[in-house]
């Protein structure tokens, strides 16, 4: 570390980071417990994640402002990943979750080590936005039971809307006290955010709101067990006042295969989430991000977190934004946040037993609603039909198929929409002008039946092979009906030939040869030429049928090919148009050929 760098950080940086950390920790505490509630596990595991995972990912990460920890979307997938375990075997579910966290870490480390972090950019932002909307709706639906004070019925196997129906139609009554708490939390949180915005207060609104509803609930005796030993509203599982200890997950081997697809889904999803947030903040701070490094940090964080009873985590949008706005200077802010959360757990744990589930449910519903960015949705829908399909498809997939498959479905839709686009092939007839330029043939151009010139444009991959075949046949057919025997194909705009397309080309050239049609390829690019050489076209195709594209972008290769076609045609030219332009014999004749 150089002196300059030390001076660059120094005391003021340290102070900024600490200040930001205290603000972020205040929001991290309720959020972490709430996200554990989404995953269907004890709130302490959320807090442990907000300590161990946050510290490690913060320390190793590339972004200066990204705060990692439990997140809503990841917790939703975690919940469905754990659905295969009997809901009453809670201890097994916990161990399975630790294993899942480790598996997610391994997936993410693999992505980082093999430098696949950049692959995430191939997932369209519309897919991610659609996913977030789906996840937000699922979060809200999942918290309805807690907000109304009803016991959540059904297991993770069942569809979320069916579970909601079961929960709402059970014989028990809605608990009005719980509704008061969740509704109160919702309203207060909306007001608090406005106050914070207007007076630029520190953003500890969530924490404050939690206090504002939990304390009256306690004073009214709703969260205290008196007499009947059952509280009037249901409370979260209390958190012991201790730091997470080292624990090797005790597993069954079958769990690994049962959770592997979920681990992959969470691994990718977590990275997408973290990278998207890190990118958004880095765009403002002009920080240069190392994607693979960030992936590695997430992976190591999850892997190590798993051994301290952690749940899978990722980058948190709200906490990172607050960290940035609170003036964090470096990634130490993430480490400090973890330390502050740890201290708060030690000090405040005895009070967590008085937090009503309904209070967290109210805050979660609001947080989820805030994830639905109407402006952004409107922008995407206006921007293109293609993105609208991606957005709606991914969102619906999350709601109907399941949150863990939503991104996969979104990627599948984008491939399904992209391949036909990429497979489009343009074919057009060309003409050579009197001045010797090659251009698209206009209807006013005189009909020349001696040599037909066609241009092909597109990607030469499996998707376009069928189109290539029909277009080539059409061209050959037209030459045939015009009564000609010479076809020049300009191929300089064909890209990236693959085996399927090369085979189609070979079959076409061989068939044409048999049918007496002379086909000349003009403007062959190096990639196509290499393919032709590797497949040994030269063994059956005369060397003068291929004209390689020159360095320049001009059409000299095409012109050469056309000349060769006329040479091959020689005296057989019975074209009416050519007859008027080319002298019948003499030295003039050859010259004219060179003019075309």
């Amino acid at each position, binding site marked *: *570390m150089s002196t300059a*760098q030390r001076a660059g950080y120094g005391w003021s940086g340290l102070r900024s980071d600490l200040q930001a950390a205290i603000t972020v920790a205040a929001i991290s505490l309720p959020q972490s417990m709430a996200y554990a509630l989404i995953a269907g596990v004890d709130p302490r595991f959320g807090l442990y994640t907000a300590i161990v995972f946050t510290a490690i990912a913060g320390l190793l990460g590339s972004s200066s402002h990204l705060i990692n920890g439990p997140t809503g979307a990841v917790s939703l997938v975690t919940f469905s990943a754990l659905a295969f375990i009997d809901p009453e075997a*809670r201890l097994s579910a916990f161990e399975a979750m630790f294993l899942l966290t480790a598996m997610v870490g391994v997936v993410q480390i693999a992505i980082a080590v093999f430098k696949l972090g950049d692959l995430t950019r191939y997932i369209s932002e519309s897919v991610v936005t659609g996913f977030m909307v789906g996840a937000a709706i699922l979060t809200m639906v999942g918290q309805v039971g807690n907000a109304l004070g009803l016991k959540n019925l059904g297991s993770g196997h069942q569809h979320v809307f069916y579970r909601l129906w079961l929960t709402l139609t059970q014989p028990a009554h809605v608990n009005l006290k719980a509704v008061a708490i969740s509704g109160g939390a919702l309203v207060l949180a909306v007001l608090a955010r406005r106050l914070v915005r207007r007076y630029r207060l520190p953003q500890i609104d969530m924490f404050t709101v939690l206090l504002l509803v939990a304390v009256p609930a306690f004073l009214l005796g709703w969260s205290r067990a008196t*007499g009947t030993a*059952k509280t009037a509203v249901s409370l979260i599982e*209390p958190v*012991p006042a201790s730091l997470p200890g080292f624990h090797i997950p005790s597993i069954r081997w079958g769990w690994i295969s049962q959770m592997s697809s979920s681990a992959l889904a969470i691994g990718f999803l977590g990275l997408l989430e973290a990278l998207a947030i890190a990118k958004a903040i880095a765009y403002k701070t002009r920080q240069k991000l190392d994607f693979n490094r960030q992936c*590695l940090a997430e992976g190591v964080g999850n892997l190590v977190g*798993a*051994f301290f009873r952690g749940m899978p985590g990722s980058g948190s949008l709200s906490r990172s934004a607050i960290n940035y706005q609170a003036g964090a200077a470096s990634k130490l802010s993430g480490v400090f946040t973890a330390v502050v959360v740890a201290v708060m757990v030690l000090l405040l744990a005895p009070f967590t037993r008085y937090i009503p589930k309904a209070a967290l449910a109210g805050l979660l519903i609001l947080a989820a609603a805030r994830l639905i960015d109407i402006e952004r949705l409107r922008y995407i829908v206006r921007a293109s039909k293609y993105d609208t399909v991606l957005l709606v498809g991914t969102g619906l997939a999350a709601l109907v198929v399941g949150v863990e498959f939503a991104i996969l479905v979104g990627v599948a839709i984008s491939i399904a929409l992209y391949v036909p686009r990429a497979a489009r092939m343009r074919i057009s007839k060309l003409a050579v002008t009197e001045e010797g330029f090659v251009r698209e043939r206009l209807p006013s151009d005189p009909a020349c039946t001696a040599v037909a010139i066609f241009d092909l444009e597109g990607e030469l991959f499996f998707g376009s092979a069928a189109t290539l075949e029909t277009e080539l046949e059409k061209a050959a057919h037209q030459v045939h009906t015009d009564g000609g025997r010479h076809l020049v194909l300009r191929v300089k705009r064909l890209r990236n030939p693959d085996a399927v397309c090369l085979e189609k080309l070979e079959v076409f050239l061989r068939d044409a040869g048999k049918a007496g049609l002379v086909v000349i390829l003009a403007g062959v690019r190096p990639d196509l030429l290499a393919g032709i050489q590797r497949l040994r076209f030269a063994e059956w195709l005369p060397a003068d049928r291929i004209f390689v594209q020159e360095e320049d972008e001009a059409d000299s290769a095409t012109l050469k090919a056309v000349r060769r076609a006329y040479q091959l045609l020689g005296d057989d030219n019975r074209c009416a148009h050519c007859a008027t332009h080319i002298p019948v014999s003499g030295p003039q004749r050859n010259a004219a050929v060179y003019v075309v």
Partner: protein
Amino acid sequence: MAIKVKSTTGALNLLAVVLVGLAVLSIGAKNYQRNADVKLLNVSYDPTRELYQKLNPRFGAAYAKETGRKVLVTQSHAGSSRQARTVIDDEQPADVVTLGLPSDIGALQKRGLVPDGWAARLPNRSQPYYSTIVFVVRHGNPFGIHDWPDLVRSNLEIITPDPKTSGNGKLSALAAWGAVVTRGGSEAEARAYLKAFYDRAPFLENGARATSIAFAVEKQGDVNVIWENEALREVAESKGELELVYPKVSILAEPVVTWVDTNVAKHGTEEAARAYLSFLFTDEAQELIAETGYRPFKAEVLKKHRESFPDIQLFPVTAIARDWEDAQQRFFAENGLIETVYRPKPR
């Protein structure tokens, strides 16, 4: 601040890969199962984890010595009645069941998984060990709890499992009931006592282990009404924070073991299952059983460990019902007695 050098990434990648290796090794080592000639699944109740963790390797050694075959016993633990139900539903293809109450194996018998007269297939009516229900309180016994009436005297929280799913839960209820009726109380008084008892339970967990975690780790409640062996373990692990209280009377719990005939026939494991369960009645196993906090059936082994197991008055189930099956019917069946005094309080 970290200085970005190319090699940092390389070093970090290496570190990450090493961590992955360590993670796989540690999880693998902890959960490793050897290749075995015979595999047995022992479906047991919640707190017997430690007991069978100790017994299984000893049995493996003895069995290998005798037959030359390697045996691997897999354990499964949860609330006793729940476990019986999963075996009936074939969710767990148990070779042997080692459950908390004879009525739980009775449920298997009713559905033809074990034959009538299963209890006579092993010594001592298939009861390798006894136990009872005791109290664990916090340091200094702040509520002055010494006997059953003390539990409902003050406004305190009782942590005990759900009688519908857990053997411990059933035994807690039967012990509480018996503590009244065996000492001259009427049935009405016993019912009132049981009602007061469950009113003081903030929640009812599914099994004994979840209950003891709630009490000892999460520090919920004031008194834990629990298996004697679980209480001994809890107190030993608490470093002085918890104290064990023996009530003046409690129930004689009779955990039973048997092999599941339909499953061992399918798996071809009857001989190994029989050997496994017979092993529980040997001196070697009885000694381990006593060390783990269960009262051995062999009188001479029990005598050796007398100081661990105070001689409190243990009433048999016949003091409150005809037998275990009758107790099950009367108290815990649909519309049984327990439903008039408690309602499910899941967490």
